[in-house]
């Protein structure tokens, strides 16, 4: 049996007694094999944690739905809000249907991973943690709501930034741009990333002037080499 088969059987928990002996002695004699086992063990923990966070968001939604269903007036208002949002999205799409920059946007846009407050089991349970848990699970509607709750409690430019990304993900570009313009030029950890995302959101709105200006600013001051290369490629495509 080769090493990969042993690793696979270890993962499945189906090693026989004889195979377990071979497996254990290989771990002692072969550092590469031992490292692969440790990597697999760590990866299993990481995937388990990622699923835990996703299930946590699922339950937060459940709680939110139950609370809303106990309050019919609020529920009707939310329903009307959703209808209005859908109508706006359809209208914006109709108006932008001839926007050639949509394809450029689609090929470069990705929400920034949560590097501000990585959620862990020891994280304090508050609106910020719930917001980032939802953000990491790509539930941007809930994340934006929780960030709003957090901002009412204490203003934080980085939270305004991540809330802006949530709005962008939810298709509300005006709100996304409003958030990012509000924090532009201020000192905080995502000041340059704000310029990059503003460039992208303006691009999607077909506002080439503002898009180019923000992306150029980002190229001048940004630190993330990958995003800088993206910004240059976008400018190259817009200006052609």
């Amino acid at each position, binding site marked *: 049996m080769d090493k990969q088969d042993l690793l696979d059987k270890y*993962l*499945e*928990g189906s090693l026989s007694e004889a195979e377990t002996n071979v497996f254990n002695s290989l771990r002692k004699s072969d550092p590469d094999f031992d490292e692969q086992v440790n*990597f*697999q063990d*760590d*990866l*299993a*923990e*990481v*995937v*388990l*944690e*990622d*699923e*835990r966070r996703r*299930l*946590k968001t*699922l*339950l*937060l939604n*459940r*709680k939110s739905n*139950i609370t809303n269903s106990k309050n019919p007036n609020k529920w009707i208002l939310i329903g009307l809000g959703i209808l209005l949002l859908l109508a706006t999205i359809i209208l914006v799409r109709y108006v932008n249907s001839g926007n050639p920059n949509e394809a450029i946007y689609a090929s470069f846009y990705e929400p920034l*991973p949560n*590097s501000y407050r*990585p959620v*862990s*089991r*020891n994280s*304090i*349970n*508050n609106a910020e943690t719930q917001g980032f848990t939802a953000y*990491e699970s790509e539930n941007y509607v809930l994340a934006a709501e929780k960030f709003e709750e957090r901002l009412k409690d204490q203003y934080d430019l980085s939270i305004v930034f991540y809330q802006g990304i949530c709005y962008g993900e939810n298709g509300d570009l005006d709100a996304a741009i409003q958030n990012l313009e509000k924090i532009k030029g201020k000192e905080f950890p995502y000041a340059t990333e704000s310029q990059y995302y503003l460039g992208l959101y303006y691009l999607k709105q077909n506002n080439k002037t503002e898009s180019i200006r923000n992306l150029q600013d980002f190229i001048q001051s940004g630190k993330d080499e990958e995003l800088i290369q993206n910004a240059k490629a976008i400018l190259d495509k817009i200006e052609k």
Partner: protein
Amino acid sequence: MSGKEEDYIRRIQRNDENALKEIYDSYSDSFMAFYRGYGLSKNDLEDAFQDSIIALYQNIMQGKLKILDGSIKTYIWAIGKYKVIDSLRIKKKDIKISNDYIEPYEIKDAELNEKQQLLYKHFKLLGKSCQKILKYFYYEGLTLQEIVEISEYKDENSVKSSKSRCIKQLRNLIKNA
């Protein structure tokens, strides 16, 4: 154990997340009422309850928990007790919790270590298809054949090579970080 509880367990073993939602609906109020007197906020209690039922779900789903000695409720309350004590410890509140009605389960707290946190950060940077295939292997514990049956991979070799490619990509991301 009641027939309903046995049904929950069978559904969780199939990774049926609706079972988790039903457990949430069934036990939420009584859990909050039981632990209300220990000085934790409503949010902290809600958090403890959610963590408890997720732990129950994942342990059953991954086959770590096959037969429950007591009822589902007993198991949730036992993990809940641990979570409540942990929250009280963080808030430096010294309150004794009675052992009445609670079985002494041993509960593992799987906080990610520093190395795993780094791995987690890069795992989240992988594409959706890579995250999915790694979850099939490392979370759901599916075999190659089972993955072929539920996915769009055409055969076991495609699954195998895709998994290797994703792990290589993950290792490279960490290496180049």
